């Protein structure tokens, strides 16, 4: 784990926040209000999303790479997947954000902060009253269990008990054992959220990203009714997927962007500037021969594992 780099990034962001803020020193910053997402970073996580098998810049291990290689976008049309909200560590990528706080009527202490995102309207509570996180066996949810504390003018939030989800929408998984640390930093009308995902199952180093929002007082959150329907007619229980060695699109994104295949396969080393020197020594990827002809994801009904019984508490489906 490259903790030095992580600390450097966090320290830099914190110093920037503390120096530039217009808020009086040592005051608790007020995040209340509506915030418009600024989509100028990490385009792969925004709007149109990533291409298939495009994993560069992510500290994934071999197991996560296999999850990505076996994934088919048709999975989103399966009824159980159509209306799931993005998890707490992914939602801020592109959604509008509204924040408000609960204040103790007697002490006037802030008991909790809440966030709500426009996509599916998930609401998260960040407890500020010092309560402990629940035991490991407690239910896991899309938003997890969050506690916060002030570090100067920066709100630092620790989140556990997240359902298994994803770090990129093209199949790269994030496990339920992951923990997430966030830093909420306000500079005038700009809110920066730095998210650090640590996952002992699928990541070899912390995955660090920052997202910016601009205060948008006129914004009003709209309801997001989502209905589950038969989008694609297929047998009940069928799960689109690619078995190992059958995904015909693995080199497509790399070839399309005229880059070598190796960096597109991801891994911690692809996050760092020095990797660019290695890229210069690698051959450019070639386009798959006939992706359309062999590109049909399989949709065999999902088979329960041999030891399937009562679903493990907190596991996703």
């Amino acid at each position, binding site marked *: 784990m490259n903790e030095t780099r992580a600390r450097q990034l966090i320290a830099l962001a914190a110093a920037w926040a503390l120096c530039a803020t217009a808020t009086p020193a040592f005051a608790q910053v007020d995040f209340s209000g509506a915030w418009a997402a600024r989509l100028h970073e990490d385009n792969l996580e925004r*709007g149109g*999303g990533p291409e298939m098998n495009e994993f560069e810049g992510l500290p994934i291990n071999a197991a996560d790479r296999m999850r990505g290689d076996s994934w088919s976008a048709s999975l989103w049309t399966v009824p159980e997947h159509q209306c799931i909200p993005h998890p707490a560590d992914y939602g801020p990528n592109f959604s509008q954000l509204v924040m408000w706080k609960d204040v103790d009527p007697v002490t006037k202490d802030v008991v909790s902060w809440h966030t709500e995102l426009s996509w599916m309207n998930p609401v998260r509570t960040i407890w500020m009253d010092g309560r402990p996180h629940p035991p490991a066996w407690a239910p896991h949810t899309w938003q997890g269990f969050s506690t916060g504390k002030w570090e100067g003018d920066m709100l630092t939030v620790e989140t556990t008990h997240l359902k298994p989800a994803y770090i990129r929408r093209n199949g790269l998984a994030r496990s339920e054992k992951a923990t997430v640390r966030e830093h909420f930093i306000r500079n005038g009308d700009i809110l920066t959220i730095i998210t650090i995902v640590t996952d002992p199952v699928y990541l070899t180093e912390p995955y660090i990203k920052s997202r910016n929002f601009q205060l948008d007082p006129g914004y009003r959150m*709209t309801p997001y009714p989502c209905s589950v329907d038969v989008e694609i007619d297929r047998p009940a229980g069928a799960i689109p997927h690619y078995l190992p060695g059958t995904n015909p699109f693995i080199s497509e994104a790399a070839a399309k962007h005229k880059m070598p295949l190796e960096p597109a396969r991801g891994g911690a080393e692809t996050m760092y500037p020095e990797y660019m020197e290695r890229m210069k020594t690698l051959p450019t990827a070639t386009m798959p021969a006939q992706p359309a002809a062999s590109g049909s994801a399989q949709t065999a009904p999902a088979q329960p594992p041999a030891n399937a019984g009562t679903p493990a508490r907190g596991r996703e489906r």
Partner: protein
Amino acid sequence: MPRRGARGRPSLLAATYFEDKTQKIEGNIVQFMFRNPHSFVHVEAPDENGQMQRWAVEWAATAQLKESGVDYDALKPGDHVVVTGNPGRNPADHRLRMQSVERPKDGWKWSGTVR
């Protein structure tokens, strides 16, 4: 007060469809699902081999469609339509991403970009 609507499911466009390819189908509407996260139009039309298929044409979320002048009653089962779109990567899905739809009977048409 501005109500910038919640957008539809942030589409995995490149991962789901061949964005550099276009396919046209002509047939009758079986179902129009005006909904979130994305609307769908199901059309019964022949494939390139002449076999009749139920095509799933992915459209936009409700707010986006309304913004472009399409409401829940714009299309009805039985309407004969010509649809153009990007074909899905999984041929078994018989799926398109909507680029245009035209109803020759009365000349109604829509074209645009689904995001």
